[in-house]
């Protein structure tokens, strides 16, 4: 017998010992970061960066496969007992010697996860991790001339690149409301002092929003540079237009945060994605009824919110709990009780 076959036999036996649980349920008690466990990380430190941003140092579990500068990671954090998933750029160099990774988080107004991480995350806390992903990365061969165009927390993936690679000729244009809002400001100025970076800070409170046409004056050779841009949609839209107008769009690489914002309304178009049906629903009819009326096979039970026999993944949009009025927004893994939820805007139910 090969050793893998042996090992799977042994594992089967172990499963017999632990049934109905799995061996990992017990191993997680003692070693949640071990190889073979679901990927998790442990928060080791939280360093404030600005008034509303902080860097979180994370020790990833043994299953972590590493990252490339510029990539992001999805993390699952328990906020008020509820697990929420968000994506953040990795700001640590890819080969940090102690194997730790960092993300740098800016608290956004009403941002449940970002405020929690910046203001109340405690060292020692376990979080859930996905593997790093994203193609906002540098090419294999280091480009000769580089421009980084960033705003706000859009600086985070770029910081990962700056810390990872020594560039021969790199220019950065970064926008933030005021000087003290510039994340990593000391480190950036140190790079400038070492002549490793040319930096232009645009302080939007005093200078106003960056007019993309000003690039000609700020970075005269911008069109020759391989450019990575990250920030709010307005900036990126303007950049994409500007670069294609000049016929150099292949030199521009962009990364967008929070692509969709759910606007909770009252009723909306309900899509049953597994069946491929769409119908309009009002804000008072339970989705269970909406689905059944449309001829979709909906699981159900008590029809009054007590049996949990109707729970179904919410893939997109938002729904309202008809009993409490609470809004639930779609996120991976979010399930809703269709018998007591109604459409709060367009939504997609996996049935």
């Amino acid at each position, binding site marked *: 017998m090969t050793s893998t076959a042996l090992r799977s036999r042994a594992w089967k*036996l172990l499963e*017999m*010992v632990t*049934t*109905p*649980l799995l061996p990992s*349920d*017990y191993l997680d*008690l003692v070693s949640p970061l071990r190889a073979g466990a679901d990927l998790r990380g442990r928060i080791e430190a939280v360093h404030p960066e600005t008034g509303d941003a902080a860097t979180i140092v994370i020790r990833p579990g043994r299953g972590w496969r590493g990252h490339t500068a510029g990539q992001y990671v999805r993390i699952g954090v*328990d906020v*008020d*007992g*509820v*697990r*929420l998933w968000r994506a953040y750029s990795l700001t640590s160099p890819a080969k940090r010697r102690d194997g730790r990774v960092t993300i740098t988080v800016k608290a956004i107004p009403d941002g449940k996860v970002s405020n929690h991480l910046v203001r109340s995350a405690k060292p020692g806390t376990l979080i859930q991790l996905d593997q790093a992903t994203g193609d906002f990365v540098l090419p294999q061969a280091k480009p000769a001339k580089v421009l980084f165009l960033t705003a706000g927390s859009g600086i985070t993936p770029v910081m990962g690149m700056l810390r990872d690679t020594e560039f021969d000729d790199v220019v950065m244009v970064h926008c933030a409301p005021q000087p003290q809002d510039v994340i990593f400001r000391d480190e950036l100025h140190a790079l400038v002092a070492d002549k490793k970076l040319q930096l232009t800070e645009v302080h939007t409170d005093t200078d106003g929003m960056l007019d993309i046409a000003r690039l000609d004056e700020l970075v005269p050779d911008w069109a020759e540079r391989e450019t990575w841009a990250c920030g709010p949609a307005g900036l990126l839209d303007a950049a994409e237009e500007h670069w294609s107008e000049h016929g150099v769009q292949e030199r521009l690489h962009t990364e967008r945060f929070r692509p969709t914002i759910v606007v909770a309304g009252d009723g909306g178009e309900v899509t049953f994605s597994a069946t491929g049906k769409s119908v309009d629903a009002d804000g008072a009819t339970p989705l269970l009824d909406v689905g059944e009326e449309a001829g979709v096979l909906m699981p159900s*039970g*008590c029809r*009054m*919110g*007590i*049996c*949990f*026999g109707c*729970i179904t993944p919410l893939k997109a949009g938002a729904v309202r709990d008809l*009993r*409490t009025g*609470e809004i639930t927004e779609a996120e991976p*893994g*979010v*399930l809703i009780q269709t018998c007591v939820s109604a459409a709060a805007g367009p939504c997609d139910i996996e049935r």
Partner: protein
Amino acid sequence: MTAIDPTAHLTAEQIEELGRELDAIRDEVIASRGEKDAAYIRKVISAQRKLELVSRGVLLFSFFPPAWIIGTAGLSVAKIMDNMEIGHNILHGQWDWMRDPKIHSTTWEWDHVSPADQWKHSHNELHHTYTNVIGKDNDLGYGIMRVDEDQKWQPFHLGQPLWNFINACFFEYGIAAYDLELGKNLDKRRRKNPEFRARAKAVGRKIRKQVLKDYVVHPLLSGPSFLPTLAATFTANLVRNLWSHSVIMCGHFPEGVQVFERRSINGETRGQWYLRQMMGSANISGSKAMHFMTGNLSHQIEHHLFPDLPSNRYAEVAVKVRALFEKYELEYVTGPLPKQVYSAWRKVVRLSLPNKKPKVKTPDRERELLAA
């Protein structure tokens, strides 16, 4: 079914107002659910797993009598925790709000021969929706017993004290059979029904795994302690079964609990539904430890009003619920475990014999209760 309706003094508006007050209690808990509650269930799960591990470890040496006693006691408690405070409540969706896929009604499996999904259907859906409605809620006597004067007596019922005792000893098998609606489905034609066969197969698989673990794998691992370990696991299962059976009997069977006619729930309003849960359930009074070991089903009334609220919140909810009972002059049936168990058993014995058509009872229910 008492001839005197103990809710007769309430007007329709009062019943709806009662419903609104109960909704408000529920909303309050939902709004304040948070980190502390999540920490609670995680702690209980981790304690249960550690207790089970240690107990099974001790049982490896169970040829040594003190080890047998400690290991068996520990394993019994671990199994009770698994079924009551953890399994029952997670499978009710009480912890789904945490969005932790590992502590979720859709993924949880318990130390029980009835597969979680089948149990959820018969328990969450049928029992909790149709609580104490004769002919709709099979929990009333589990289809093998007569627990109300109004149910038709048959000679078969003469043996029900014995059935009930056997059911208590092998309660998890009783539940599995009940979830399968075995009585009904063993009928020749139904037996062939593919859906029933699939469910029966799933139960068979679960039983095989459970039996293999408890009565083969762990005893074998114990080597020279094979037989003592076997006896220990058997004892732990027996203890768990007797305990959960007793707790569950206390929930709906003691004297003073109402049952309802099939027709009475046609067009039931939310307020009326709540009222039926209030009148159809009974509590167990006692210490914190007692509430914990019953999986907070000692707060059966609160659990039936709000089956999806986290179990650790029932105690605080109970204070408010009890005040509503007083306000609306309803009887809150509760008592210490021995008293409630006795009351439930007495009913089982009493109703094993035929009775005259329910006599019109004089309003002596209170005395009757005290006597119970």
